[in-house]
């Protein structure tokens, strides 16, 4: 690869990544050379600025045709653009949470890392959306993972934070190993790591032995990646890690990390396996895997919603809720309907808004009370009506009631489930578990609105929290009432 070929590439399609990378480098240096006494929060604001700049850059790229550079390892297509936007928006909101985060213990000295590690994780996720190669996908994934491991344990002197990070690392590494093992078989069957090439080669696989191996690879990759989705069977880390990690990190894990997980799942499973090994008996390996996916989706929804009923810690409850939402998204994947990407994207958008908003409230309340029990929300309506009503709207959206983005997202998935070959059972499980979810979402409501407050002190809302809440509520309601704003936007990409 000569210098000329390098310069021939249309590097501009990577502008958002470069911006983020630049900000990371800048922050690292600043953190190193800035006097200790200067509040590192400024770094947080800088990273927000960087994210906004990256978004602006992305917007300027919206009109471009799908472009591949670096020998097809980096592709900027509609899929990449749309999900990159989600990741940037999610990470931006998380940064707002992060700058408002007032850690009590253990991370006074590490605020700088706290901010730019989010950015490195984001960078990894962004690379995943655009990679066209197994290797870059893997690197992106690991960049995201390793940054997240550190973030989870950023409260260095806090036992729970450390434990959470440790659990995350161990489970994450095992998951990585399993995924890689699966990937190695795919490589073995095709001799290539380029996704398009793999798809091309796989569509020619007819040999029974190879098909079998491919199925094995598929299962391993999926189970490995289900770690990132926090879906069954690799979901059990989520409650512990969510509970122990600092709240902005939890929010990041539940939104950005999950989005990245779905990005890679769609990239690998859908685009690679869609036409893989079409044997005579109808359909590719993906269609053969259909029932496994459906089964895992159902299990995920059931576990997430049912176990959430028993939680007393709000962050654990939201961990299970997050598992449940992963289950809903898996339903969209399973049905493989024509609007698959569309409904996943919209659902992730809705989920990002409502979940980040909810975590903003959780962050405020837990900081105030020092614990994260659901009972701490008692009487929130009296103490801060705005906070309670905001949380109420977000919970309603999470529960999927009409008038909110959560409903439209579910509706979208639902339409897909009934389109073409209808998935009655899966759809029924989805909706039944949704009803079960009313129990715990409205359990929080009960605390906030019906129960008397333990103490009467009021809340001061930091600027960052206010921003997140406004974006979350306005977004949830706006996309609930006029979803076409988002849908049309996506169509124009």
């Amino acid at each position, binding site marked *: 690869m000569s210098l000329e070929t390098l310069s021939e590439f249309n590097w501009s399609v990577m502008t958002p990544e470069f911006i983020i990378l630049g900000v990371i480098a800048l922050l690292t240096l600043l953190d190193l050379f800035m006097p200790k006494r200067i509040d590192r929060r400024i770094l947080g604001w800088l990273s927000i600025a960087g994210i906004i700049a990256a978004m602006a850059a992305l917007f300027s790229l919206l009109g471009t045709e799908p472009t591949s550079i670096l020998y097809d390892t980096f592709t900027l297509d509609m899929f990449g653009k749309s999900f990159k936007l989600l990741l940037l928006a999610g990470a931006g909101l998380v940064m707002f949470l992060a700058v408002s985060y007032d850690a009590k213990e253990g991370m006074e000295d590490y605020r700088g890392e706290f901010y730019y590690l989010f950015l490195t994780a984001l960078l990894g996720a962004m690379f995943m959306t655009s990679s066209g190669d197994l290797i870059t996908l893997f690197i992106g994934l690991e960049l995201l993972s390793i940054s997240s491991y550190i973030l989870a344990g950023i409260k260095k002197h806090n036992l729970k934070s450390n434990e959470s990070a*440790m*659990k995350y690392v*161990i*489970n994450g590494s*095992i*998951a990585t190993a*399993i995924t890689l093992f699966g990937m190695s078989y795919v490589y073995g069957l095709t001799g290539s790591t380029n996704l398009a090439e793999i798809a091309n080669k796989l569509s020619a696989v007819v040999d029974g032995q190879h*098909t*079998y191996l491919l*199925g*094995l690879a598929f*299962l*391993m990759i999926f*189970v490995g990646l*289900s*770690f990132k989705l926090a879906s*069954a*069977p*690799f979901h*059990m*880390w989520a*409650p*512990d890690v969510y509970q122990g990690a600092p709240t902005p990190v939890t929010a990041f894990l539940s939104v950005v990390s999950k989005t990245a997980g779905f990005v890679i799942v769609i990239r690998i499973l859908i685009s690679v396996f869609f036409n893989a090994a079409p044997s005579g*008996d109808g359909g590719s*390996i993906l269609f*053969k*895997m259909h*029932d*496994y996916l459906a089964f895992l989706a159902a299990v995920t929804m*059931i*576990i997430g919603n*049912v*176990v*959430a*009923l*028993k*939680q007393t810690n709000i962050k654990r409850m939201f961990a299970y809720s997050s598992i449940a939402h992963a289950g809903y998204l898996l339903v969209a994947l399973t049905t493989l309907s024509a609007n698959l990407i569309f409904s996943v994207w919209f659902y992730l958008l809705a989920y990002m808004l409502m979940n980040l908003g909810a975590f903003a409230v959780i962050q405020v309340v837990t900081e105030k009370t020092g614990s994260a029990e659901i009972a701490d929300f008692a009487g929130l309506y009296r103490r801060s009506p705005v906070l309670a009503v905001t949380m109420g709207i977000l919970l309603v959206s999470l529960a999927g009631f009409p008038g909110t983005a959560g409903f439209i997202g579910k509706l979208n998935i639902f339409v897909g489930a009934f389109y073409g070959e209808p998935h009655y059972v899966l759809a029924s499980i989805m909706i039944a578990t949704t009803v*079960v979810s009313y129990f715990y979402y409205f359990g929080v409501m009960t605390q906030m609105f019906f129960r008397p407050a333990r103490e009467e002190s009021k809340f001061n809302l930091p600027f960052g929290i206010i921003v997140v809440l406004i974006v979350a509520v306005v977004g949830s309601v706006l996309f609930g009432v006029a979803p076409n704003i988002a849908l049309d936007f996506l169509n124009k990409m």
Partner: protein
Amino acid sequence: MMENAWLIPLFPLLSFLILLLFGKRLKEASAYVGILLTLASLVFSILVLFERFSEPTYSTKFDWLTIGDLHLTAGFEVNQLNALMLFIVSLVSFLVHTYSKGYMNGDERFPVFYAYLGLFTFAMLGLVISPNLLQTYIFWELVGVGSFLLIGFYYYKEEAKAAAKKAFIMTRIGDVGLFIGMILLFWETKSFEYSEIFAAVDAGAVSGTMITLTAILIFIGAVGKSGQFPLHTWLPDAMEGPTPVSALIHAATMVAAGVYLVAALFPLFAASKTALLTIAVIGAFTAIFAASIGLVQTDIKRVLAYSTVSQLGYMMLALGSAGYVAGVFHLMTHAFFKALLFLAAGSVIHAVHTQNIEEMGGLWKKLKLTGPLFLIGTLAISGVPGLSGFFSKDEILVAAWEGGHPILFFLALIAAFMTAFYMFRLFFLVFTGEARSEQKHVHESPNNMTYPMILLGVLAVIAGYVNTPWFGSFLGDWLVDGNPALGHGHVEGPIWIMIAATVVSLAGIYFAYLMYRKRSIARNTISGTGDTLHTILLNKYYVDEFYQLTVVAFTKGLSYFLRFIDVFLVEGLVKGVVGIVQGLGRTGSKMQTGQVQTYGAVAFFSLALLVVIFALTGGYLR
């Protein structure tokens, strides 16, 4: 005038509305509102009646309710029966309104009483000019409510409450029969209009079974309203209401509505022998059944109540024996003399403040006007020749005999004997002899109470002469005029029937005289207090108790059984489902041990499981 007959019910309705809204302010003046407005009704009724003597039937209707292609109508019709009923009802109502001014004087809910009376009168008048079954049913229910409200007028008395409830529910059982019958008939004939129903029946458009079925169902409604066996028990209890109410509703008008209904639908009933026979049997049985209970009752109003039940049975017997005229005729005379009896009884109660006849006695001297009037009523009901009851009862006996029911005829004859006996037992115990308890300040009732009684007394004497074997059957001929389905205006019966009837009633009177006046026969000759027969009669054959033990107990039992289902099965099922979900949640929760290696193991074994399944099935699960 007849085209304005619709105004007649509206006057009392107006009275009801005025008194409901302004009664509190009007206070005692309420009576005048009620009296004047019912007087207006009465005047209109008389005018209508006289016009109907010369003019043909008038009827009109308009669309009331549209159901797709079905147009249900409302309207009114003035035929002979209706005109007569209008007159009877508005007359008795007017008299009772007047009477109540004295009787209810001083009651704090005086305006409410008049309001209820207005409501009842409205409903009753509306009932008797209805040209179709549906409208009849509507007013039929409304009179029931009027009756219910007035029975429960003394709402603070537990007995009144129970009686009101009982009256409503018992009659409603009958009403359901009417309801079903009416609807079935509608689908058979596609109309509620009497005229169209009769036409359909006449044309043979309705099968015989259906006629019998609907006729009997409708008759069940009449059974409930007219206190016929087995739905009679509410009527004696209804005596808990103020006495003028008993006179108006539970003697003269509403309870006769059953008879009116059968009469109004007579062409339908006439088309089914079975239905007629049923009516006749029930009527005759009720007549003797109630009369026998009346023999031993000690409450003045209850005796009269059983007498009413018995007399209504008579009317039913007449109708069931195809004696249309006899039934309607007796309905009219009974209205007069029974109203008289009740009002007189009210006057007595007003004077002595008790209803127990054992505590009365010797009132003849103290109640100079009430006594003779009561006697007139007693004579009339006993069927003493010359008074109204004699002629109408004779008609009924003739009808029963000619109708070919000798057994029923003899039952009726025995009942006539009993009637004479218990009525004179009542008379002797109340008015003759010595007072059997301390009675202070016994005085005759005020004029506004006695004048209505006098008028009724006159009618009780003369009303029979409109239809006699001796002076011509004017009423009968007029009633059936132009409607051959109703039978003949006058049925010529053997002369011995009249003699037998006379003998029987005189015998009854004489027997009562011997037992209660002269006391030459001990009161316990046949059956004394404490004897089985006496106890059975005193307890009204234990019908109430029987119902209590069967129907009520069954209903309660079923209710509790259903509650068991509701609590344990329905709720239990829900709790079970919730329990399963919660249990799943608990299990899932327990698996979350905090051991990170467990988490990895779960994932790995799940993967292994999937791989094994994949390996075994080769991919396809279906």
